[in-house]
């Protein structure tokens, strides 16, 4: 299927997100720090914002990306600072905040003894969605419609990732946190994911996407945040990040290596 056709499919089947509560930024991270056992500083005074955009989050292994995601979801308790989702402080209103979020963890622990369809039904049920039609559309979009009744334990890495992506993105979350969404995806699925992210972003969903594929991050992101050892070392549009690295005309991969590595 061509990119135009995919774009048309996405725009015809994907309604715009609920635009209520637009006064607060969708994601606001203010001076957040987190250490493990006092000696490993996972996050060190990180501040950033994302609203109606795609924010690319990049950094080397162990830079603090996953910890930031877990802090945003209040799965781990940050030591200091404030994180707000559409105005909700995640420490005080974690349930309300989580209802606005779709999350794809880097390491996907799924129920191997549920089928893909059952797993999506579970997530939809937990998010109080009655969306069997939408689920069918998503499975069809990622080419899993004929594998929906197969146990997840039988899925390949790419298929598991697709199920995780559908679980995160169905129901039009206001904020989508995608930690390494490309791992295991084939080229066609990567393109489909990119188009869906762009479409949903236009419809009002805010994305935070981390990946080690710099070309993908550069292409989809409105702004990019670069983490190094838990510190935010660059933040802004791709041009702005290039400027901050002092490499205005270099490929983004070189810029990343300059900023993210010692």
């Amino acid at each position: 299927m061509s990119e135009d056709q995919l774009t048309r499919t996405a725009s015809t089947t994907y309604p715009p997100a609920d635009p209520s509560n637009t006064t607060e930024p969708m994601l606001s991270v203010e001076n957040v720090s987190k250490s493990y056992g006092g000696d490993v500083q996972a996050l060190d005074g990180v501040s950033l914002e994302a609203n109606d955009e795609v924010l690319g989050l990049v950094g080397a292994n162990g830079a603090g990306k996953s910890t930031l995601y877990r802090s945003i979801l209040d799965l781990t308790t940050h030591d200091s600072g404030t994180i707000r989702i559409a105005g909700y402080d995640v420490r005080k209103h974690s349930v309300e905040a989580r209802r606005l979020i779709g999350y794809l963890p880097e390491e996907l622990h799924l129920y191997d003894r549920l089928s893909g369809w059952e797993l999506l039904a579970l997530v939809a049920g937990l998010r109080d969605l009655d969306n069997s039609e939408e689920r069918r559309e998503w499975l069809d979009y990622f080419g899993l419609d004929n594998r929906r009744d197969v146990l997840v334990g039988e899925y390949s890495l790419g298929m598991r990732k697709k199920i995780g992506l559908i679980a995160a993105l169905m129901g039009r979350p206001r904020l989508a946190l995608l930690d390494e969404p490309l791992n295991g995806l084939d080229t066609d699925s990567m393109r489909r994911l990119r188009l869906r992210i762009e479409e949903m972003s236009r419809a009002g969903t805010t994305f935070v996407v981390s990946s080690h594929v710099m070309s993908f991050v550069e292409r989809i992101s409105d702004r990019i945040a670069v983490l190094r050892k838990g510190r935010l070392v660059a933040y802004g549009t791709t041009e702005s990040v290039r400027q901050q690295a002092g490499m205005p005309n270099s490929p983004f991969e070189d810029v990343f290596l300059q900023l993210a590595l010692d």
Partner: protein
Amino acid sequence: MRPTQLILTFRCRAFGRWIRAHGFELFFLGPMIVGGALWVLSRHLDSLRAPIRQLVESHQPLGLPISPVLAFSLLLFVLQVPATFRELYDPRYGASVLDALPVPTAARFHVSMATEGMAIVPTFLVLLTVMGVLEGRFLPSLSRLPDVCWGLFSALGSLALFRIVMALSVVRWRRAVRSISAHAGIGVRVVTTLLGALALLALGLSAHYPLASFIFLPWLPAAAQIEAIVRSGFALTTMPHSPWTEPITQACYLLGLYLLARILFIRWHRSNLETARLLSHRRRVVGLPLNLRWLTTRLGARPLVAQIVRDLTLIARRFSPAVPLAAGVALTAQGAVVSLLFDDNLPLLWRQRLAVAGLSLSVLAMVALVPFLLKHQLPRFWIEKTTGVELEQIWKAKLWTATVLGSIPSILGSMILLAAPDLDPTAKGVAILQLIAATGIVTSILGLAVFEIAAQPVLGLIFGSLVALALAALIVFYPVAWWLWLALYGYVASQIAGRASRRVQLVEVAE
């Protein structure tokens, strides 16, 4: 260093780390619970010692109903395979990495054998302690210790080797069904079963190793049948016996089983690997006839219903070998109750009481699955945590699951009580009411406490079961003060329920 030594060194290191990580439970909490339970039960143990010894020394099979015991032995036979299968062939577990390395097949076998051996160590220690307790001391007397240790070691070691042979044969047999040479697999399976039963006959009915008899209890009826055939075939009135017969028989059996397992493993390993890979791919999905939308309209909250449907689906698909085991224990308890109700030697009141107690045990066996279900779900708990489900709905879902699980044996039990021949209608009514009360207590206490014991389900289960069964027993055996027990239950349940949401919040999501 040789490959076997190298691998075992690393395994021992990992095992040592596990011991260190669980030191508190293993060396403090566990002994405290066991010691406390033994102290509470010491009076009854005193009265049990003599009859047990008499029973074992008389070489008579225990007077248990044969059908449920046979069903349970069949279940145990089936249950022994998956764990060993996982160790031998599952690509997701440790030892399978050795298949891709230049490790001799014999070394791979010894590693598997060592792992199976390690698995019997806790049972060995527990049985050793219990044997000592039955003698009225902490360990068996020093003069008997070598005999007892050898007896237990040979019994448990043969069980471990027997498991390996069975797992090898099952995989081989499944392959053989699709090929021409079906007979080898089936033949080996039959022979190993017979060998196992004969060995159990030699080991299990020994007067010197009474506790070994108990672990093989389910096998005894089958073994007794074989013994009868052997006796009639050789016109024997008693089996030949001398002080050296048993140790020599045991050693020969162990050696024979080791050689058999080793030969089969080396010979079949490559082809079995491929078969196991195919077998581990389950393509057929068995759905539960649960309509989410229909249930939602009746139970209210969709997140709650979604979790209950998920839990029941996982149980129906045997998320763990604990599922058939729990079902087997529940069925055995119910079968025992049926035979008890027909036992004219017992007074009617005691028949009624023991029937309710047995049926409560079957309820407990099923509800005990819930903590293991939660343990299985913990790595996937991010799904609940990140989708904005109310904490109350998370623990309520487990309570509902426990209720559904407990209701199944409870309903079956009520039907058994209704069909009881000698009980009058009033006694039946009282017994059913007592069973319903016991079911309610067991399901609610364990269902509510499940998040209290998420990290250590076994220990938690012991605590929870003791509390729940104690309350149920008070209602069954001292029904006069029912209002007092009800108040006590209400207090305990409200205390646990008050903490439930907080406990859910504290459950960590795995990285």
